[in-house]
């Protein structure tokens, strides 16, 4: 991948155009496609947060849904019991995602390669089981339902449009922040660890602390995406943080092309579109379509969706 992250002029222009179309989308989109687009943005933020871990630090995680779920449950619980302020619930969501990631990360980051993958899978499944059996707080397997609509100042985020704009603005700021971090010295250090952890150690970098910082940062933004889920869907179930979500997020990142935030968004959009809209109209054959897409992408687009869009020399 080229040296400068995708912040140069040309891709900024692309991003501006895309942002403009997304911002005006609610004016011409009927309500159901708008809800689907909102769901894509929530899932895309989760994929972007995971890409910080997978694409930039080289740590593939199969349990990232846990921090997404932690954020969603925290936001939902706070909205039901304490305050319906949108910003506050979002902060609580990010904080609980980060906290969960700190606890899990401090243990997981020590492992390498497939052992890290399986350790994150194990920690994710334990979090999923906790959501199922901690009936009083998470509502058990029926999920946390009846989450009230949150409000931003005086505006109650109830209509599909209001929720969409709130989710879009949070998504954009989230991706912008992660884009900056990716292009920052810290981001470069993470990419160094991904490329050659041994050499980084030999240069005096305390690799464990950087990996843990990346894990927590990624968990925080996954928690933020969870907060958006609670606001948009107003229901959080254990499956939202379970293995299904974690796997979809990981492979959305891989389809999109690792180490490219725009790739993660594209991957997420493709996966959610197939699962929610296209797959549905085939009378339950969603997984089949997804399987075919996975196989096709892995063979036809070696560098993922993002790679396909970017001119060859900058690969």
């Amino acid at each position: 991948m080229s040296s400068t992250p995708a912040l140069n002029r040309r891709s900024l222009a692309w991003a501006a155009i895309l942002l403009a179309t997304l911002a005006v989308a609610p004016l011409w989109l009927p309500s159901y496609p708008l809800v689907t687009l909102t769901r894509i943005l929530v899932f895309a933020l989760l994929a972007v947060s995971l890409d910080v871990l997978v694409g930039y630090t080289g740590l593939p995680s199969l349990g990232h849904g846990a921090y997404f779920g932690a954020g969603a449950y925290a936001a939902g619980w706070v909205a039901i019991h304490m305050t319906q302020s949108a910003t506050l619930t979002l902060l609580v969501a990010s904080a609980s995602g980060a906290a969960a990631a700190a606890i899990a990360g401090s243990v997981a980051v020590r492992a390498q390669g497939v052992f890290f993958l399986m350790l994150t899978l194990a920690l994710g499944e334990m979090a999923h089981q906790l959501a199922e059996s901690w009936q009083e707080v998470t509502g058990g397997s029926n999920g946390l339902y009846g989450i009230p609509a949150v409000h931003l100042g005086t505006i109650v985020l109830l209509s599909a449009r209001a929720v969409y704009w709130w989710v879009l603005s949070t998504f954009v700021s989230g991706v912008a922040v992660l884009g900056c971090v990716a292009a920052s010295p810290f981001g470069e250090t993470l990419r160094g660890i991904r490329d050659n952890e041994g050499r980084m150690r030999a240069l005096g970098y305390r690799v464990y602390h950087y990996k843990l910082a990346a894990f927590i940062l990624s968990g925080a933004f996954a928690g933020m995406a969870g907060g958006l889920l609670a606001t948009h869907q107003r229901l959080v179930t254990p499956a939202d943080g379970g293995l299904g979500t974690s796997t979809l997020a990981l492979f959305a990142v891989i389809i999109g092309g690792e180490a490219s935030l725009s790739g993660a968004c594209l991957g997420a959009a493709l996966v959610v579109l197939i699962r929610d809209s296209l797959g549905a109209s085939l009378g339950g054959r969603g997984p089949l379509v997804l399987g075919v897409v996975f196989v096709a992408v892995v063979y036809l687009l070696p560098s993922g969706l993002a790679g396909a869009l970017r001119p060859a020399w900058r690969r």
Partner: protein
Amino acid sequence: MPDWVNLHFVSLLNGLAIGFLLFILAVGLSLVFGMMDVLNLAHGVLFLTGSYVAWFVAGPSPSWGGFLAALTVAALVGGAAGALLSLACDRLSRRTHLAQALLTLGVALIAAEVLSALFGNDVHSVNPPEALDRSVSVFGHAYPLYRLCLIAIGVVVAGAVHWIVERTLLGALVRASVSDRQMVSAVGFDDRRVKALVFGLGALLASVAGVLGAPIYGARPGLDVTVLILALVVVVIGGLGSVRGALLGALVIGQIETLGRALLANFASFLLFGALALVLILRPRGLLAPANGSRS
């Protein structure tokens, strides 16, 4: 017998039966991963294929002939599928592990849907062959005869796989590839054929395990994921790329899934992954990682 053992004798015995079934399933996954660094997410669907073959060929209450026919058909189907999957993965040999895992996941999704299209979404249960379909008394405890045979079959398969890996040329090639794949092809072995053989053998064992497991687990959509996770846990706990590791991991998980659940009933759901997390924290490369620590 000491009172405690007597109390939990059936669970201990059952742990062995489930453990050996998991070994037959997981040993292929461990060798393939150790040798080719391919995380085969389609391994679960191979098991499910075996279970559906058992229901389709042998029928709900099979005769001896039916059961053996099911075993051979499953072996052929599994072996062929494994070889094909190996060739498919080989085209991605220069790509990352995750790209290969993505391929196997795609294949698994397609296969799962094809199976549910062919056999419907109902639960199909398969009885053991008539002769084995009864309980016998073991030290005064009633225990299904079929599961005792499962232990016997497991021991035989463990011995056979161990013999193949330790004593035969193919086994030597497998162990050599686990430590250094370039050297194996440099020495002149067609790397692709070796991989196809090992992948095929692993897949064959997984489908056969599917047939053997049908009387216990039956055949239903969703079983492939449950079994895949169990196999991954067994392989990782045991250490990648080693038969002994797969056997140890399988027996440990077998006991956790039976004795563990009997003792700590209300933590039943946490046990499997708690054990995995604990092992990975204490021994980051698995309990019995091969001496040189396979490059994962």
